[in-house]
């Protein structure tokens, strides 16, 4: 009793150093740094965060570089003391780049080129994915194998005869060169989307569909009334990815939609405008329509203009992009 009382009384009178020594033992320090089996140590966490931030910075370096350069005027570019932050907000680069790229028109055309095939592709891929997921039929295994095979096969093999086919049908140089394959569930990266829908509809409880069929719905009716309304997240995922991939596809767009042979300048989206940026800007410059000469800041301004719509979309809808892979159930199998 008395001993306890004395220690209690002695408690507050202990010096700070003593208390520090008592609380801050070697083991505690070790535990703090390296953690226990249950808890991560400070050191490990610190390293993980440092690495993540460093890699993240390196990862975004081109984007930072692009934006910071695009605001620089000529004197800033030449000035060695200006590295990251421009001395003043200089918007003429953007103005000239936009006029040279015909920004608003190209944006609308880009929306059309990516949008129409995307809508068609989502619709047909959904039907096909549902067909694979909820029916048993002979030859299904073979078809699935063909599906994967058609993804692995580089598009260059089929490119030339397809081009001949389109030009015979007079489809090159029109948006239908993209829309028609999408209508037959063979658009850009369609196998992936079919597989995503396949995975998704496999997880939809069969009881729901069966209940609808007992109530007298046919196969198509139960698909439209039950399956589609429950497939919201998958549809969104596929829509976003499909849109982005169509938007970024310049190789096939140039070949089919723009049509190389008798180039139809009508279907120029932003990405293709960016591809031809140097020459189009040079011709603008020679006719005296621009206030600046072609420099890296103008090119960076053009680049940032061309990715701006997608960036905006990404920041508003990022949740759906990032969670999409989970939802798609690629890893579920």
């Amino acid at each position, binding site marked *: 009793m008395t001993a306890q009382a004395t220690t209690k009384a002695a408690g507050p009178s202990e010096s700070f150093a003593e208390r520090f020594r008592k609380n801050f033992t070697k083991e505690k320090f070790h535990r703090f740094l390296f953690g226990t089996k249950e808890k991560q140590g400070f050191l490990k966490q610190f390293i993980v965060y440092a690495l*993540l931030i460093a890699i993240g910075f390196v990862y975004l*370096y*081109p984007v930072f570089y692009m934006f910071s350069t695009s605001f620089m005027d000529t004197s800033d570019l030449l000035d060695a003391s200006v590295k990251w932050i421009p001395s003043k907000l200089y918007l003429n680069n953007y103005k000239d780049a936009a006029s040279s790229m015909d920004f608003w028109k190209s944006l609308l055309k880009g929306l059309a080129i990516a949008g129409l095939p995307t809508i068609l592709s989502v619709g047909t891929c959904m*039907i096909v994915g549902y067909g694979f997921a909820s029916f048993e*039929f002979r030859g299904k295994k073979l078809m699935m194998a063909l599906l994967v095979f058609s993804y692995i096969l580089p598009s260059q093999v089929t490119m*030339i005869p397809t081009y001949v086919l389109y030009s015979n049908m007079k489809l090159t140089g029109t948006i239908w060169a993209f829309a028609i394959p999408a209508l037959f569930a063979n658009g850009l990266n369609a196998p992936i989307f079919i597989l995503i829908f396949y995975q998704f509809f496999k997880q939809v409880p069969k009881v729901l569909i069966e209940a609808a069929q007992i109530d007298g719905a046919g196969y198509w009716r139960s698909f439209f009334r039950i399956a589609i309304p429950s497939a919201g997240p998958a549809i969104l995922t596929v829509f976003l990815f499909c849109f982005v991939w169509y938007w970024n596809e310049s190789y096939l767009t140039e*070949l089919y939609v723009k049509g190389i042979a008798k180039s139809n300048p009508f279907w120029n989206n932003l990405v293709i405008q960016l591809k031809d940026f140097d020459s189009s800007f040079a011709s603008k410059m020679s006719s005296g329509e621009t206030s600046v000469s072609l420099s890296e800041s103008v090119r960076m301004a053009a680049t940032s203009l061309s990715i701006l719509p997608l960036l905006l979309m990404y920041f508003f809808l990022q949740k759906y992009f990032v969670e999409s892979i989970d939802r798609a159930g690629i*890893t579920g*199998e």
Partner: protein
Amino acid sequence: MGKERATKKTKNPQAKLGKLEKRQERAGYSFVAIWVIGMLAFTLIPMCQSFYYMWFKIKARNGLQFTYVGTSNLTQIWIEDPDFIQGIAGYVWQTLLQVPIIVVFALIIAMMLNGKIKCRGFFRLVFFLPVIIVSGPVMNMLVSEGAASIPALNTQSVVSAFDTFLPTAIAQQLGTLFGNMIMTLWYSGVQILIFLSALQKIDPGLYEAAKIDGGSGWECFWKITLPTIKPMILINAVYTVIFLSSNEQNQLINMIKTAMFSATAERGYGYASAMAWIYSLLVTLIVLLFFGLLGSKKDVYDRMVKKRKRLAKKEAKLAKKIERRSVRNAKRIEKARKSRKYRTYDGSGDY
């Protein structure tokens, strides 16, 4: 009887379909019909056609005019486009180097994000961003402005260091790889997400059990994490190969396109088809290589079970053999006894 029939039916369901099954089959065909048509029209038939084109010289004047030239298109590539052949060698090296880098990098990032981390969403956002903005022209712009290399990294010294102990071809490829390191890493956005969601599906009980048995984190990684996500590694490797092969940074596909519309007499559709086939065979081979490397060798337990089964089968065979022999011998003895060629001792009387 009835039971027997039922088991037979489950054993071979395709023997005879019921009415409902037939109807379901028809419905299934009606759902996938649209894809089958598309597949035929836009993949299989063009594939055969381009295989056919490969052996012809094609002139595109009022319709296509075909002249059979045999393998001359294939040999012509070596004369007309030595760049293409060199590009193929470069492409193979580059792919073989880039795929492991991308997959490993994605795995490391995914492992780091998988721990207890604040702002995981933010980091995921950052690492996925390139997927949204990566397109051929944007990449070309960034690479041509030199924004693609890690700023503090001296590429020249790296290359010269590699050059001392590696063949020049590989060292050069490594050099270009390091020169565009960020672009290489940019291609790993989707892979990171795939790994991340695979990692989150691993049962934490496994790790707990391993820890109770005294396993360190290092051992847990090799014995639990890696075997569990092995299928995902394959998926990611294949995805990366396909992505790299259809990416516009890749010069080969641009060469094919230029050859397609080239005005010179030697080139044209047939010539470009030959190029495309060479290229596609190469891509397929690389994919198959990764399948072979990472494909599903079943895990140790499965292999052991298989071995046991094989042994058991062998033993059963042996037992059957012995049994058959014994039956045969018994018959022989019986025969001999019947013909009374000799008597066997039946245990009675004097001998």
